[in-house]
């Protein structure tokens, strides 16, 4: 059985950044396991630009951003196996994977979860109707077009205003498809404002809020969908149904951290993020098992994924060297207006980066962190939206007592 200081599950942006940072911190007995045949993760199919404005100070495409990391991995000869799918992670850090060569079992001092996220599917959305071909998640359509050179659509309806859905609206339009409209069940857009402008408005594609698909029609191929308006509790309003003829329905209705392996290993998950509950060291409920990137919580920008994975690597390196990580007893609770926070537990003895998302849009508000009645931290915000991840550093000296923290929007 192979022994490794660190095994990284997933060769996407989080896994690659974690591997490099571990290497730079002196932990060089590393193995990256990637189930696809290439490193790079989802970036490989994200051919649009806009990546790396923070890290590289220029607007790169996804493949270029990934390649910058892959080049470094190759340069330092960090070992990786592609075409290798992890089947099981045990509580005592034993990893079982399969590849074309057979079964690989590996014992790791530290396991780094970097599996990314998955898309909410038709089944997960519970859309009623028939089951014709032509219903794809945005990422599937993106893979068809950008990796396999297959055009999946002619007449398109998009459900959900997530960023990938809007980016695919533009992509499909540029390749000659007709995107009729984007429908969003929530009263606010799911994706970033810049994508509403450059992917929808630029191409005159309308976005309808508070609407959803309530029927899917077609025998072998999709022939149309029924769209209904929804009320404030997101229930379809009878009598508002409208029929749209189309051959393709693209779903872009949210991303979910992919934690099947983590859950089976016994990692405690957060019901809000659907990722692991972690402390300020990015350590999960299992000592020595760390998580970062979209497997932990869905990010808006890959730059933040890389930074988070690097922060994880510093902590994992300390763990591997036998340094005791400060115990984290203080819970962070998501209060009014806050969807979730990362981390969920801190020591109170060390500065930490707090990441969060708001549950709905607010204007001229404050994000406030409290311990009981005492305000630990406060920042005025002109505008906050659920599509954008918010991050700020809380200093150790701001936390004066051993009491849980609550974050809220006021």
């Amino acid at each position: 059985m192979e022994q490794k200081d660190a095994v990284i599950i997933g060769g996407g942006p989080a896994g690659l950044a974690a591997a490099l940072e571990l290497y730079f911190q002196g932990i060089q007995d590393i193995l990256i396991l990637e189930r696809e045949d290439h490193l790079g993760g989802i970036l490989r199919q994200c051919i649009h630009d806009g990546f790396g404005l923070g890290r590289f100070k220029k607007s790169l495409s996804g493949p270029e951003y990934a390649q910058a990391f892959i080049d470094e991995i190759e340069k330092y000869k960090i070992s990786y196996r592609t075409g290798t799918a992890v089947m099981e992670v045990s509580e005592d850090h034993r990893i079982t994977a399969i590849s074309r060569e057979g079964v690989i079992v590996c014992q790791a001092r530290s396991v780094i979860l970097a599996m990314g996220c998955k898309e909410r599917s038709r089944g997960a959305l519970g859309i009623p109707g028939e089951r014709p071909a032509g219903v794809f998640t945005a990422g599937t359509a993106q893979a068809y077009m950008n990796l396999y050179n297959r055009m999946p659509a002619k007449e398109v309806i998009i459900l959900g205003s997530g960023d990938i859905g809007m980016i695919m609206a533009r992509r499909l339009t540029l390749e000659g498809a007709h995107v009729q409209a984007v429908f969003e069940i929530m009263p606010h857009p799911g994706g970033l404002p810049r994508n509403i402008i450059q992917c929808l408005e630029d191409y005159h594609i309308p976005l309808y809020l508070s609407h959803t698909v309530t029927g899917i029609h077609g025998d072998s191929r999709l022939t149309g969908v029924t769209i209904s308006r929804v009320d404030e509790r997101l229930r379809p309003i009878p009598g508002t149904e409208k029929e749209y003829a189309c051959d393709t329905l693209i779903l872009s209705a949210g991303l979910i951290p992919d934690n099947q392996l983590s859950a089976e290993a016994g990692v405690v998950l957060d019901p809000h993020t659907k990722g692991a509950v972690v402390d300020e060291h990015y350590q999960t409920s299992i000592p020595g098992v760390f998580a970062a990137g979209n497997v932990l919580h869905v990010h808006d920008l890959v730059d933040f994924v890389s930074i988070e994975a690097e922060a994880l690597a510093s902590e994992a390196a300390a763990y591997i060297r036998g340094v005791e990580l400060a115990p984290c007893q203080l819970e962070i609770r998501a209060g009014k207006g806050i969807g979730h926070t990362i981390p969920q537990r801190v020591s109170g003895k060390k500065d930490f980066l707090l990441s969060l998302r708001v549950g709905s849009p607010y204007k001229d508000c404050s994000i406030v962190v409290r311990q009981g009645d005492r305000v630990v931290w406060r920042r005025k915000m002109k505008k906050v939206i659920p599509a954008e991840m918010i991050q700020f550093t809380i200093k150790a000296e701001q936390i004066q007592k051993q009491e849980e923290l609550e974050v809220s929007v006021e």
Partner: protein
Amino acid sequence: MKKIYTCIICPGGCEIETEIKDKRILSLTGNTCDKGADYVRQEVTAPARTIATSVRVKGGVLPLASVRLTRPIPKDMILSVMEQIKKISLTAPVLSGTVILKGVCGLDSDVITTRNVRAVSE
């Protein structure tokens, strides 16, 4: 005329309030960085965008190489530029960062590859 622009440079998406007369900006507020002001100035006079797509690759381990523009082009030129890019076909190996069409449609922007594609036999 008052108009609100949503900046597309970063995910912040600043809402920038402007007052415009005859394509001249009289006032501009709400941007949190200089790039926002530059974006609005460009948007008012001649809106520009970058685009990304793919070109076919013969003999490669992948059928496509992704490409992008090096500089934004006028918005109304997007479809013409797409037409030019569609005519291109490459032969593997393809190296990321290779200029495959210089000054596309006579514009001050090049089409470059953004992916390495190895040849099948390599």
